[in-house]
């Protein structure tokens, strides 16, 4: 869907990424909202609409997002919404909301303390409740099943997967938010034990606590607030069937459709992409589906393999892609987020520089 009203990213903040933070989710949000609004040069009072992405199962509490509203400063009462999705979908809703034309500034957040419980026991609760959840179908197992399909089809090799891990960890050295970074030898990685055959430790993301906030502004308001708006020029998300067994796991049909709907192939080359490829083998599936060639820099932040704050990982991709335009001189960037087993649902956001 083409934007009817241009909307720009004007500020963002990414929290420290830690294996276990001593802060609550609301405290993480308090900090990133304070920082993101400061980055945008506004105050909380200037925000007309907020939308948060978080998950009650992760928090271990019903309506946990109600407590998180404390971080917004919602007095006088603010228009607020919530998605039980990654914050990237919260940003999508905020973008749609600004299209109505009556509001100018919106804030999207994503937050999660993955360390609150074992993610392997949380994830199945979000799966199909009849056929998948009672088997304890966890994220790593689901990903491993897709990896096996790709390996058997010869579409990826274990060496290629280890090479992706080594590259993202190397890139992550420059990212102060990275949790996993450094120089790693591919052969040494391949000598490691399988965690869930065919996946080794380096094929998996770390368990991360963290949050992210992104500020959006519409049209003239964006130009008024900043000299360097990062415009959203394409935005779409597409879902496919939930049961992995009915899908062709060699490809990502929904990612390809989202890329087409967001106009990725139109309007010039993509310089850089931040993908929510939380498992190494997902990167080649996504670059193929999104039409990204070898000339496109993938995950210069280190991506989710460097830090994976559940419910915020996708929104961090959008913030990092915006940073590539604002601070690294890139012209056109793609941010991607995913949700559901084996890349079930995919979101594509195209960002561009300009006045």
């Amino acid at each position, binding site marked *: 869907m083409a934007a009817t009203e241009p909307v720009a990213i004007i500020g963002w903040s990414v929290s420290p990424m830690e294996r276990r933070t001593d802060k*609550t989710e609301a405290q993480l949000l308090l900090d990133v909202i304070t920082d993101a609004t400061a980055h945008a040069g506004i105050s909380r009072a200037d925000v007309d609409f907020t939308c948060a992405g978080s998950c009650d199962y992760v928090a271990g509490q019903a309506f946990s997002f109600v407590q998180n*509203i404390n971080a917004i400063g919602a007095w006088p009462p603010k228009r607020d919404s919530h998605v039980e999705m990654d914050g990237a979908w919260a940003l999508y809703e905020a973008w749609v909301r600004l299209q109505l034309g009556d509001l100018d500034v919106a804030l999207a957040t994503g937050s999660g303390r993955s360390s609150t419980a*074992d993610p392997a026991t949380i994830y199945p609760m979000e799966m199909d409740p*009849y056929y998948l959840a009672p088997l304890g179908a966890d994220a790593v197992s689901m990903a491993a099943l*897709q990896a096996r399909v790709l390996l058997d089809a010869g579409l990826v090799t274990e060496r290629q997967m280890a090479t992706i891990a080594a590259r993202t960890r190397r890139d992550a050295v420059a990212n102060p938010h990275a949790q996993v970074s450094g120089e790693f030898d591919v052969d040494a990685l391949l000598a490691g034990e399988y965690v869930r055959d065919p996946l080794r430790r380096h094929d998996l993301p770390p368990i991360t606590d963290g949050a992210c906030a992104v500020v959006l502004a519409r049209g003239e308001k964006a130009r008024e607030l900043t000299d360097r708006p990062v415009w959203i020029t394409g935005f779409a998300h597409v879902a496919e069937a939930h049961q992995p067994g009915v899908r062709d796991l060699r490809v990502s049909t929904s990612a390809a459709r989202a890329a087409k709907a967001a106009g990725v192939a139109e309007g010039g080359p993509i310089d850089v992409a931040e993908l929510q490829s939380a498992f190494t083998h997902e990167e080649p599936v996504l670059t193929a589906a999104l039409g990204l060639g070898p000339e496109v820099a993938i995950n210069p932040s280190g991506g989710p393999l460097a830090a994976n704050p559940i419910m915020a990982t996708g929104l961090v991709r959008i913030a990092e892609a915006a940073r590539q335009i604002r601070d690294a001189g890139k012209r056109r960037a793609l941010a991607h987020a995913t949700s559901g087993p084996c890349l079930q649902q995919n979101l594509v956001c195209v960002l561009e520089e300009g006045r």
Partner: protein
Amino acid sequence: MTTYVESTVRFPYKRSLGPVIGQFMTGLTEARLLGIRADDRVIVPPVEWDPETGEQLAHEFVEVGPAGTVRSWCWVEKPTTQHPLDRPFAFALIELDGASTGFLHAVDAGRREAMTTGMRVVPRWRTERRGHITDVEAFVPGDQPLPVERAEPAGEPVTMMTYDAEVHYLTPVTENETRVGQAAAEGRFLGLRCPRCARLYVGGKNDCPICAVALTPQDEVDLPQRGTITNYVIITPVQYPGQTETEPFARVHVLLDGVDVVLMFQPVVDLANDDVRPGVRVSAVWTPPDGTGRRALAGWRPTGEPDVDDPALVNRIH
């Protein structure tokens, strides 16, 4: 300093199955695996809508398997408590004979080296089957169906299923919350006054929700032990898991004198359910010190003062 509290949350769900999943689950009680026809494909396990087109599928069920071919697998070396087996096993996508799709289930292969893509597997059925995906305990390597006990037709169709998951949480308890808890153990209420708007909060709040600024121990204030009931509810307990009350009981909101927010859902002492009402003046009742010298709030007892006559009081719910 932040500490952590451990808790276990149970999620005991009871779900209705509908005509398609119900048929599949009923089949399981008969040790039969059913798929649903979608054009030239057979989808297993059956779904109500065509995953390609979204069209509702006719209820044309096809028996598949019991043998099938492993199309993908992964090896689970350390199972979680939610996994179907408590020893190393494989998750696999199994294309049952006659099916067009992969059926996710466990393969009890004993060792990783026994697993290959393309291997043949058959289900190992439980003796007691109730219409649940785990009626198949696991698939095992092989091509020949295993003998099945009690494979007679189902009496009643299966219409419901249970799912009872448990998750262990480790939740941070912030410094403010800890200090309020410590004060309560001494029979004191600790409040926090916002340094910006001067609102006075109870309950170890970490930030002022109006100003969105953090509250710190420097903002602490000792609170009075008296207040007024602003609102109440009489709860007739339903015996859901974890409910320990058996008789109707009251929970009240208490607005401490001079404080800006209520203490929510407080128990009462020496106040009959019929006498609970907004405006009643109450004071805190603490338990005697336990073996470690710690007290706890037992509830709120009427002081005998005249009621506060303020019709707006009932609106104080936060």
